[in-house]
């Protein structure tokens, strides 16, 4: 019983240690108290800020932009990736482009996107979608390409048509890897949305709030917004993990 409970509490130890260290840094005045409010003050401020309409708007805008960008990226990336993956020749001929742009930090393209889309909401969504689409695309493509040869041979012996091999087997085989892409994609979308909100003129969003708070030296608000952004990223990832576990129930076993 006790060992059961203590093992359940294990995940709490890390955050507790961090808060203790944080409190210690404040109490011992390692840092200027103006730059680092105490953890309790910060958390208190954070929970209080949830009742502020401006904070709610900021969270909602960031979430909206992230999900919109992700939806575009998934709608384009998954089908395209599956198609590319089912023809090794097509994939190989585009591989360099995909790898090149995947390796290019998307933030480097923000000025270019500003030229095209102006300082609009569409711009932030577009740049985040662009960043996410490549990782989604290449994961889906690899999922198809790494389909188990034995399964394809089994289908061939059964005399299954090419279309059904694609639909019943390749697509299902790629799902596990596709989910890895989707999960990574939503995280990347959030990162880029926050950056875009900071540096592309924005009236709302957590990125905008963080940089605004820093400019006017509202340090508690800055820390609270950072924590909320982190929680948002964590929860999005968790949600995708849960959906993944339900949908691709076989991936950890087979």
């Amino acid at each position, binding site marked *: 019983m006790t060992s059961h409970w203590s093992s359940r509490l294990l995940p709490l130890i890390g955050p507790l240690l961090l808060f203790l260290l944080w409190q210690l840094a404040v109490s011992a005045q390692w840092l200027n108290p103006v730059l680092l409010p105490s953890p309790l003050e910060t958390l208190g401020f954070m929970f209080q800020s949830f009742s502020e309409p401006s904070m709610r708007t900021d969270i909602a805008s960031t979430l909206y932009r992230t999900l919109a960008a992700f939806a575009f990226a998934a709608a384009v990336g998954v089908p395209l990736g599956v198609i590319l993956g089912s023809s090794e020749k097509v994939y190989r001929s585009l591989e360099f482009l995909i790898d090149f742009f995947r390796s290019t930090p998307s933030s480097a393209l923000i000025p270019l996107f500003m030229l095209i889309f102006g300082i609009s909401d569409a711009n932030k969504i577009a740049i985040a979608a662009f960043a996410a689409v490549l990782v989604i695309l290449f994961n889906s493509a690899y999922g198809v390409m790494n389909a188990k040869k*034995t399964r394809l*041979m089994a289908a*061939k*012996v*059964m005399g299954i048509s090419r279309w059904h091999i694609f639909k019943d087997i390749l697509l*299902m085989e790629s799902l596990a890897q596709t989910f890895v892409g989707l999960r990574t994609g939503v995280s990347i979308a959030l990162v880029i949305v926050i950056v875009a909100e900071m540096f592309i003129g924005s009236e709302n969003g957590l990125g905008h709030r963080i940089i605004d708070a820093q400019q006017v030296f509202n340090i508690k608000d800055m820390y609270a917004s950072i924590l909320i952004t982190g929680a948002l990223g964590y929860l999005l990832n968790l949600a995708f993990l849960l959906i993944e576990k339900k949908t691709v*129930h*076989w991936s950890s*076993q*087979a």
Partner: protein
Amino acid sequence: MTQALSLAPALDKPQVPGAAPRADTHVTIRGLSKAFAGQPLYTDLDLDLPRGKIVSTFGPNGCGKSTLMNMIAGLMPMDKGEILFDGKTLAQTKIGYVFQNYRDALFPWMSARANIAYPLVRQGMSKADANARVDELTQMFDIRFDLNRYPYELSGGQQQTVCIMRALAPRPEVMFLDEPFSALDFEMTLFIRDKLQEVQLATGVTMLIVSHDLEDAVFLADEILLLTRRPTQIAEIVPFDLPRPRGAEIMSHPEFVRVKAHTLEVFRREMAL
């Protein structure tokens, strides 16, 4: 090349090229050639597989046992030659194939039942008919585990049983088994051996089994096809006609012991060359 000559004393070629097949032949292989990277594996091979019998293929490592089977099953192209099933081409013939690696052969996103029904449904059979066929196989195999489970929830032996049921579901004329026991424990091997014999007796399906285990190869076989080292030829076709169903006790039967000793002797001789 001297390979034909050096093997000559042992060689008992079953038929001259282009010869008429034996009377009870199901699968005729004529002039089969296959080379890998310029190295010939098979040159002008002729072989007949008898109808409604179990043929086990046995030979040294790398002699192309699986390659031969995969070419007959159409999973690997041949360079030259013709393979006919009762005079029909492969495309006109229903075949079943059981893979060594059952984990990779089953579809993990489908239940065991859906796996078995899959080839039937894709052939256009109605759901009800497909289900009835699965029930029939369940009876035949005396299945006690829940077929509504996913493959990864089953033991290795249960998964391989599901593979065999899936291969049998469309009532194939010829069934190919590529080292079906190599990943199974002894108990499961015994069970599946029994079931395969029962099914074979009940349906009269022609079976070709590749085995790397001499005992397995002999136990199930009506004929043991012994292959030489590459370039591969037929070393000998050894008949083994103990009555079926054969239980584990026949492994001490004098005839079993004699045939096993003989195949081992041929195998040793081929290795020594």
